[in-house]
């Protein structure tokens, strides 16, 4: 088929809650995070109704990645320490993780890897909020999950087409849907009232040069994606390393020694977190 009407695609994606096959937890969650006036209490209430979700959120914030292992005991406490936006992003990612694993084997590992590499890069570049870049890394490929949920058969075919033609999943998506997972996730993250910088990172991680709100953060997620693919951790739809954007490369100014340092930290953390998030 190919060349779906982008407007129809966008409408269908934005009304994801109306699609019967969407898991109910994601529907409820999207209603919660869609509300720009959501309060800390409402988030806590929603999460506390679901013990499995509570456990997963606390597990994630208490993992060594955040630097305060074993000290956050409640969702309230997490929101205070990390901020509402980071917790919203984490909530979405833990819910999406389960679906992610079914949608594309290896995408969860890829996403965790990109989150870790993004955080390490953010720290290296002296960013004040490395957790926010971590969340951007965690969610950068959420559009792939959305596409598999909304168009399961088409997406399956797209992955097979990419493999058969030896092209990237990004190009195969564009051939098939006229738009890509990055755009899809961008639309939804705006609808979900994610922070503007986070939307920018997610929507532009394949073309960091157009980012206006968060050029450095977007360059970081772009680079993290490339490094994780280069190392071959997880699977994100193809086995090809995309070319680094020259402007992003210049912005980051990484030497070979920096790259090796990041890879080393990535390797150590991935080994540990894969266990933690598997439960």
């Amino acid at each position, binding site marked *: 088929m190919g060349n779906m009407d982008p407007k129809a695609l966008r409408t269908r994606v934005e009304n994801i809650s109306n699609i019967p096959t969407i898991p109910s937890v994601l529907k409820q969650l999207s209603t919660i995070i869609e509300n720009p006036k959501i309060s800390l209490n409402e988030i806590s209430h929603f999460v506390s109704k679901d013990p499995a979700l509570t456990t997963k959120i*606390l597990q994630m914030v*208490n993992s*060594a990645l955040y630097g305060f*292992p*074993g*000290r956050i*005991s409640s969702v309230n406490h997490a929101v205070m320490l990390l901020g509402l936006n980071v917790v919203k992003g984490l909530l979405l990612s833990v819910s999406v993780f389960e679906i992610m694993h079914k949608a594309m084997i290896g995408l969860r590992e890829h996403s965790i890897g990109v989150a870790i590499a993004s955080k390490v890069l953010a720290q290296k570049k002296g960013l004040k909020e490395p957790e926010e870049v971590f969340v951007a890394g965690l969610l950068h490929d959420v559009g792939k999950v959305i596409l598999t949920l909304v168009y399961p058969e088409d997406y399956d075919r797209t992955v097979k087409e990419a493999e058969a033609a030896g092209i990237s999943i990004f190009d195969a998506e564009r051939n098939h849907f006229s738009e890509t997972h990055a755009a899809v996730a961008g639309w939804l993250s705006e609808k979900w009232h994610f922070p503007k910088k986070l939307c920018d990172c997610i929507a532009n991680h394949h073309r960091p040069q157009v980012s206006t709100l968060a050029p450095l953060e977007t360059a970081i997620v772009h680079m993290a994606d*490339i*490094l994780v*693919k*280069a*190392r*071959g951790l997880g699977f994100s739809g193809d*086995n*090809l*390393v*995309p*070319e*680094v954007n*020259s402007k992003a*490369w210049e912005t980051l100014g990484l030497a*070979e020694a920096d*790259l*090796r340092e990041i*890879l*080393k930290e990535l*390797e*150590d953390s991935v*080994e*540990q977190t894969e*266990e933690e998030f598997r439960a």
Partner: protein
Amino acid sequence: MPKIPVEQLKPGMKLARPLQNSSGMVLMAEGTELTEARISKIENMGVDSVFIDGPSRPARPKEELLASLDRRFAKVEGNPDMALIKKAVREHIEAMYG
């Protein structure tokens, strides 16, 4: 940092990560050196495996990892920035095998 099954722990090994119970309480600190007594304590906690200091060797042979690295970079060989990234990853992989 390899994850070692409890039955393969030996005195003298050091914990690479703190040992925590399910609610996150630290039971043994990072860097703790294992003794026979501590190993049996860990066994009694019902823990399956723990992180131990030191490099962990990948399960797959080095040649296989390097060959798939070449395949992943096949389309971007001409780009000097990508060549640098590939070099760093190759050295990183080689270092994992010591």
